[in-house]
């Protein structure tokens, strides 16, 4: 195997990876790291699903089960979902689509990865030294007074990883403002950039509040004082306000980048200009802003005032509007498009369906009266998994396949990719749709045993989880296979628009030999097809 020219992967030493300030390599470092966390968190989920196969608590002790859902939640939220698309695909793609040589602060970028590793080490130590059983929300007084285990180690891990997230967000915002190629005006930016920009704003503005919340929790636990302890004059609701002030916007950190990726995929594989560019762009910003004022919907049943509940309910309905705008625009883009069902497109279409279902069930939960019935049931679990897994994970997989040729210079086997995408879709629905029914019937979350009438749905869910596991493992196999054996990708295998496709695959170390100049509007597929004939079909035939 002889590489055609020097590229960012040409150096092979470990040192060249650990000290790299190249955004593309840092993206790959993140990819490797978050997959490890994903694996551990997925194993925890697998154990839970196995336990829930039977109504009796026979596989795990109750305490172990509590630790499993805490590990699953903490690792999935902070060490997989939040970093997933921004730090892997964002890091790799953002400077490329801006026509820049790197992000604005490459050293800060590397520092952010090291902070992530440090935070991750704390969290893993917490996991393996005995686990934590507070749930990912660290609610007080459970976390401060009663919880055994390694709450502080885990919280320290999340605290440190938070700073990694802040640095990434800061870097992306400055990069988007200051590093755009000549001619690349704001309204010509790929929609993925708008999504990353909105995400970064949330990272920069919400994460510090989480940091201060965890700090206060630490003070309470170490000094034995009562910041959130009602017995000593504190108020546990304050913890929840502070926590959700971060964690609701964080939900949008976990979905906005996915929406950005899907906007790219839908247009590319419909070979059409995106419908309503500015609506999609500004709906990302609207989500970022509105996302900051809906946190109270997590406390409808915890003694928050009825008036606050009404306001938060109304605002939660409002925040669904920009998301709906996106779904309508994607659908309109598909209309009369020249659609190819290649792997990234299958993931993107899956995203639209599952995100819509996840979003609509969110409205059930934003309704005050319905929420009283559904709070803390499997309905909530199903709802956010439809958004987080059906949404973000599918978008991540779609984006990874879409940019894989750019990242590695190789094509993945298309048939295998399509198969994996469909297996994932089926497995996902079989896992989580029964949980909507379970929740509606009243099965509470976070219990290791349950009444017998719920068993049928739990069996379906566990069966789905094993199919889902196949859907996740298959890409690992063929993507690794493609590194050596995949067909060479060429500059632009999808005949896509966007500056990242104007440079070789894999790109040279500084991305572009000449700073590119942008002269055309975004997603100009009509124009693109005239001088860059479509190769996708042939590519599909060849594999």
């Amino acid at each position, binding site marked *: 195997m002889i590489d055609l020219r020097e590229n960012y992967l040409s150096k092979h030493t470990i040192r060249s990876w650990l000290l790299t300030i190249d955004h593309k390599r840092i993206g790959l470092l993140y990819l490797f790291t978050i997959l490890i966390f994903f694996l551990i968190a997925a194993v925890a989920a697998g154990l839970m699903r196995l336990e829930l196969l039977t109504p009796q608590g026979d596989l795990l002790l109750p305490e172990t089960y509590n630790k499993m859902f805490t590990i699953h939640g903490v690792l999935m939220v902070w060490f997989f979902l939040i970093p997933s698309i921004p730090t892997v695909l964002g890091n790799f793609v953002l*400077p490329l689509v801006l026509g*820049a*040589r*790197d*992000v*604005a*602060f*490459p050293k800060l970028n590397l520092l952010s990865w090291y902070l992530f590793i440090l935070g991750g080490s704390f969290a893993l130590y917490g996991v393996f030294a005995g686990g934590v059983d507070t749930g990912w929300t660290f609610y007080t007084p459970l976390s401060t007074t009663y919880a055994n285990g390694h709450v502080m180690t885990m919280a320290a891990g999340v605290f440190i990883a938070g700073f990694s997230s*802040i640095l990434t967000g*800061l*870097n992306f*915002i*400055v990069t988007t*403002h*200051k*590093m*755009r*190629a*000549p*001619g*690349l*005006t704001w309204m010509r930016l790929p929609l993925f950039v708008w999504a990353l920009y909105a995400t970064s704003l949330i990272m*920069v*503005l*919400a*994460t*510090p*509040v989480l*940091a*201060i*919340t965890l*700090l*206060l929790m630490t*003070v309470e636990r170490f*000094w*034995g*004082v*009562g*910041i959130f302890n009602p017995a*000593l*004059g*504190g*108020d546990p609701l*304050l913890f929840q*306000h*502070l926590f959700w*002030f971060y964690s609701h916007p964080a939900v949008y950190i976990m979905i906005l980048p996915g929406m950005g990726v899907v906007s790219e995929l839908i247009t590319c594989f419909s070979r059409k200009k995106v419908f309503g560019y500015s609506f999609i762009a500004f709906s990302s910003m609207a989500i970022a802003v509105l996302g900051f004022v809906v946190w109270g919907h997590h406390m409808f049943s915890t003694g928050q005032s009825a008036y606050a509940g009404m306001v938060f309910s109304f605002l939660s309905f409002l925040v669904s509007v920009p998301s709906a705008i996106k779904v309508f625009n994607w659908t309109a883009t598909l209309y009369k498009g020249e659609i190819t069902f290649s792997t990234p497109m299958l993931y993107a279409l899956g995203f639209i369906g599952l995100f819509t279902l996840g979003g609509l069930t969110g409205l059930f939960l934003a309704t005050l009266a319905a929420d009283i019935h559904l709070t803390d049931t499997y309905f909530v679990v199903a709802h956010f998994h439809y958004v987080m897994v059906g949404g973000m994970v599918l978008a991540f997989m779609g984006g990874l396949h879409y940019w894989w040729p750019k990242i590695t210079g190789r094509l993945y086997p298309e048939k295998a990719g399509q198969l994996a995408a469909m297996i994932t879709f089926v497995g996902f629905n079989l896992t989580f749709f029964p949980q909507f029914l379970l929740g509606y019937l009243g099965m509470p979350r976070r219990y290791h045993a349950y009444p017998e009438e719920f068993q049928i749905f739990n069996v379906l869910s566990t069966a789905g989880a094993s199919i889902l596991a196949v859907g996740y493992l298959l890409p690992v196999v063929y993507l690794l296979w493609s590194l050596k054996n995949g067909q060479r990708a060429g500059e632009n295998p999808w005949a896509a628009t966007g500056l990242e496709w*104007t440079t070789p695959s894999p790109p040279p170390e*500084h991305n572009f030999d*000449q*700073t*590119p*100049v*942008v*002269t*055309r509007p975004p997603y100009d597929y009509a124009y693109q097809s005239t*001088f860059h004939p479509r190769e996708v079909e042939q590519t599909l035939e060849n594999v």
Partner: protein
Amino acid sequence: MSDATAIAATDPATGNARAPGDAVARADAYPHEHQFDNLAQQTDAARLGMWLFLATEVLFFGGLFGAYTAYRYVYYHAFAEASRELSVLFGTLDTAVLLTSSLTMALAVFTAQSTADSPAARRRSGRTIALLLLATAALGAGFLVLHGFEYYEDYQEHHFPGRTFFFPGAESGQVELFFIIYFCLTGLHSLHVLIGVVLLAVMAALSWKGRYYGGYHNPIEISGLYWHFVDMVWVFLFPLLYLIAPR
């Protein structure tokens, strides 16, 4: 893009016209980092980065200010009682010292900005800038010393939260809440001052030989942004902690 060269483009960072492919052609007085096209772009990026960092800091302190607001609303009387235990004299001294340090900081930035690009002028104002920065750092250190005395006094009066805390009366727990927030806020603020003192000392050393002048003074300006921010947090802390109760 195939027909790219026909169209004149504008550099988004500087607003200057930029010919395609001139990325490395510009000669700058100071070498800029490889990812930037020129020093102006680097300067702009660094400045925006610092403002964003300060936005993060606002929200970081904001969480604590939120906790303060919630508890002061609920425990209005106890917070007034607790505030009376703090020394207004110390608080005023703290404020005076910090505000003065912002003056010396602003003077340092001003001197750097108005230095002409000649070796003699740069050497001369290099000293001035360094001394002004050192004065700023010294005032910051003075603030920390003053605060250390205050903490010691608080500790002796059993106002440090936890096992040694004591306050007579039924509102003891609520007064303790005030002191928890007081120590968290001032402690975090002092940590920021400490970081600032170290930063300014380093900047003073860098300035001494005339490194910064009208054409290149961004690091000083950015350090100044940070220092003024730390100062401004105190401007909020002083009235909210020391001055909320008539004495």
